[in-house]
Structures are given as C-alpha cells and as structure tokens.
C-alpha cells in the first residue's frame, strides 16, 4: 500500500540490545503522535519480544540476528520481531500465586506482557525462525 512506511533494524543476539529496539520503536511511534502511555506499552512489548528472540529463539548466539520491522499504516503501527531459531512451543500462562508460593518458576512473564500491552498479537513459527507480530492502534 502506497501510504505504508517500513523501517527495519537487525541486531545481534546480545544482552541489552533490546533497549536499542525499544528506542527505535518509540521514535517511530512518537512521529505518529501516539500518546506517551502507549509509547511505554510499545517499548515494553518490543523489549519482551526481543528478549524472547535472543534467549529462547537464538539461544544467546551473538551470530544469530534479531530482526525488528516497523510498518506505519493509517492509524496503526505494526511491529514484527523475528529470530533465527527453532520453535519454542506453547508457553504456559504464568501464575503469580504459585510463583509466590514457590510452586513454579517466577519467570515467563514476557509473552503475558506482550499480549496484554498490545492490541493484536500473533506468534508464528517459520522455517526461518519465530516471528511475533504486534499491532498497536492510535485510537485505542
């Protein structure tokens, strides 16, 4: 579509690079006049998607890349975060009560946050790696 603008960033799978992706996404969202609270939602969701890609998809292999693609469309921003690893399968929804009681691992909140902070989220496993696609709307 002619009105779409696309921005891409490719990062090594190294600790801390998710903050580069956060700032990249925030810069684009601000040009679209997203309110500050939604920019913060986007930053956290992008960071969590990148962390999953780095840790679980690419297994912290710095030679494997994480691709972040931002597509600006009418009233919405689409974000795709792609790794180069094998599928990570279903991740159970974390339960804080069980975690506080010490009955389950306190990790695993990344996907929960992504789903709750973004307006639309899909997860795909392809032969080239895993892709998390997220959409955030200006009017929500």
């Amino acid at each position: 579509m002619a009105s779409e603008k696309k921005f891409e960033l490719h990062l090594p799978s190294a600790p801390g690079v998710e903050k580069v992706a956060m700032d990249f996404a925030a810069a684009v969202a601000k040009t679209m006049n997203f309110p500050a609270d939604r920019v913060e939602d986007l930053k956290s969701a992008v960071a969590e998607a990148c962390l999953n890609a780095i840790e679980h998809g690419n297994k912290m292999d710095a030679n494997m890349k994480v691709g972040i693609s931002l597509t600006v469309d009418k009233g919405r921003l689409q974000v795709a975060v792609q790794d180069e690893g094998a599928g990570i399968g279903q991740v159970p929804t974390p339960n804080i009560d069980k975690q506080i009681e010490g009955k389950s691992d306190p990790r695993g909140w990344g996907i929960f946050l992504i789903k709750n902070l973004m307006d639309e989220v899909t997860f795909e496993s392809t032969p080239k790696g895993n892709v998390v696609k997220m959409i955030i709307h200006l009017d929500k």
Partner: protein
Amino acid sequence: MAKGQEISIRPKGDVSVIDIKGDVTALTGQPVEDAYHHVTAAGAKKILLAFASDCYINSGGIAVLIGILSESRKKEQAVRMTGLSAHFQKIFAMVGLTKYAQIHLSEEAALADF
C-alpha cells in the same frame, strides 16, 4: 553492578528502605537481591522498595521481585513499593505483584502504611 544502576539501603524508623536506580532485569537483579538479603540478615520486618521514576524493569526483573516477595512472605516481612512510573504501576498490577506488595505514590504514604 551494571552501568547506571545504584542500589542503596537506608533506615527510616523501623523500615528498611532499599533505593533502586537503573535497570532491574535478570542480568542486573543480583544487587537488588543482595540488598534484600542484607536487610533480612539484619532482622528487617518492614521493607520499602523505593524505585527511581525512570527505572526500566522487564520480565526478568519482575521474576527477581517475585523471588524477593516469595521469600519475604515466608519470613513474614511486610513489603511496600514506591516511586514507580505510571507504566510500571500498571504492569505490576497486571502481573498481580500488587497483591503481595502495595504500591504507594509517595514514600511518606508507603511508610505510613506499615
């Protein structure tokens, strides 16, 4: 300690205040845990986690905090939190952390709640 991170402890009456500046993540969570263990070893029963308003906290940092709250529950310590940005107040409520440690808008309000 990670660049930009500062963790310090100060007494405020019978409350042990842990001041947290910088990132709280899986990679940078150890100094926060160390501060908690330090005040616990000193016998703290009331603990206030005082975050700087520009703290960055991710899911790994949330896991660190859940670990602290899990331990504090077993040790019958009361924990409160303050200083969090509106975004992280929302996230902590979303996750359910606020069931185990209330968030207050000011340090004074948090201290008064113990």
